[in-house]
């Protein structure tokens, strides 16, 4: 005899949206680097800044600091949106900071500027779930090795180069046909 029961899993009410933002690869643009308080995130993003400007001298990379290991407040998000053409948000290096990094990127995407979050691979599946639950399943993310903090300078530099290369591909990708 069959039994019926209520599915205990709730639905997510957030509707999925298509991400189709991009920036020009050749125009002089400003990229905001959103840096959380995870140890060595500042050092790492300094390296990212150097790689960015070395590879593209007409590009400006501006650093912004969240006051926590979690997400940026609304004032900071507004400032970044006002001052920048795109953003790279860092770093997903623990559970809460991964949530914060993804939230920061999505907050900027919702304002209308392309944004990429940098997530270490230990927290990659968590970030995947978050982009879905926040309604932006194709919000761009770059996967970095774990750990970044406490690593040798050369390891960090290599990770920074990877971050920049992949972030710029994602930020400049033409998604207009994806509508």
């Amino acid at each position: 005899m069959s039994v019926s029961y209520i599915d205990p899993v709730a639905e997510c009410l957030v509707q999925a949206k298509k991400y189709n933002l991009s920036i020009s690869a050749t125009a002089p643009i400003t990229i905001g680097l959103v840096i959380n308080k995870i140890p060595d995130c500042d050092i790492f993003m300094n390296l990212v800044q150097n790689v960015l400007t070395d590879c593209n001298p007409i590009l400006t990379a501006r650093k912004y600091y969240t006051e926590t290991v979690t997400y940026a407040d609304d004032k900071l998000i507004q400032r970044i949106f006002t001052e920048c053409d795109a953003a790279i948000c860092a770093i997903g290096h623990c559970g809460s900071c991964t949530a914060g990094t993804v939230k920061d990127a999505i907050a900027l995407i919702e304002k209308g500027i392309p944004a990429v979050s940098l997530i270490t691979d230990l927290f990659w599946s968590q970030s995947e779930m978050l982009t879905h639950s926040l309604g932006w399943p194709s919000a761009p993310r770059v996967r970095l090795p774990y750990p970044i903090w406490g690593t040798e300078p050369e390891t960090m530099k290599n990770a920074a180069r990877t971050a920049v290369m992949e972030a710029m591909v994602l930020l400049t990708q033409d998604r207009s046909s994806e509508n």
Partner: protein
Amino acid sequence: MTILQSNTEEIAIEELHQRGCTDGLPIVLPTLEKVKTMAQRVDIDLDMVIGIMGPREGAASIEKVAAAAVMAGCLPDHFPVLVAAVKAVCDKAFDLTEVNQTTHSLAPVILVNGPASVECGNINHSFGILGPGNRASACIGRALSLALINIGGRHPGTTDMAIYSSPTKFTACFAEDESGSPFDPYHVSKGYAHEDSTVTVIGAESPHSIILEPTSHGKGDAERLILCIAGAIANPGSNHIYRGGGGGVLVVLNPEHAEILSSAGFDRRRIQHAICEKSVMEQDLAFKYYAGLNHVQEKDSADNASQLHALNNPNQVMLVVAGGRGSYSMIMPTWAYAPHGNLPVTRKIDLFPSCPAY
């Protein structure tokens, strides 16, 4: 409402385990009849959404919360407490997404005050408040945990990144011993009336034990107890010290310890102030542990008043009286990094007295 079918109850329960819908322990199958009976205890439509639970941003409808209650083994009388607890954790100030996803090992702890602690199943306020044996305590806390799994999407290693997690993620619910306390109950200190029922949730670590055996003369016992509690909060592994003074801390005094403090002239406010003031670590010791942190500087030899504070504000101390009588009280520190400070959130419990099922 999504209704699933299986050939047998055993298979249905196994399917729920396989889907990751349980905490690993046996559950009660949430049949439509059981869910409706549970929900009838509150005067709210089944499809009413009472909160959104992160990280999944799942809709906490009465139906889904009742399903969690059934699965946990709750009785209908437990349900009003659970409804209030869900509302409390869904409050922005609780930072549920961050609390669920941090690598720190914290879990929502539920405190019940007021008549509901008796009317909603005699929630435990005495010996063993965080252990097995009391159905209401065990099931209400567990129901919240199952709601966080199935509505909030909290799954270990994929969305719940707690490195060790904690037994309190299975269940953590107790009542304050209001009649055994020399102080006003916690909810009264937050502005509620004695006759109100409230639930307070705080994301906290597992309990840390504090021992104090009173001396035969009793002199200085109160001050020593304060120092012991404060010292435990300001220990080297504590997030409160590491963070430089953030986060709430749940301090649970057993009634005997509460009497020691009360007899020495301490009221609630004075205890909070004293704990806050004494929860310090000398700067040179902090430097030994934490050299490299921005807020920890090497102590200048001319600087003779340099301390690191675990707490910045007496209001960070959430003081309650509960547990059996004896030599042990406990503290439950918090993560201290949540955007809103890991402070407790209190919500009124509606007992729905006009509800036919009351």
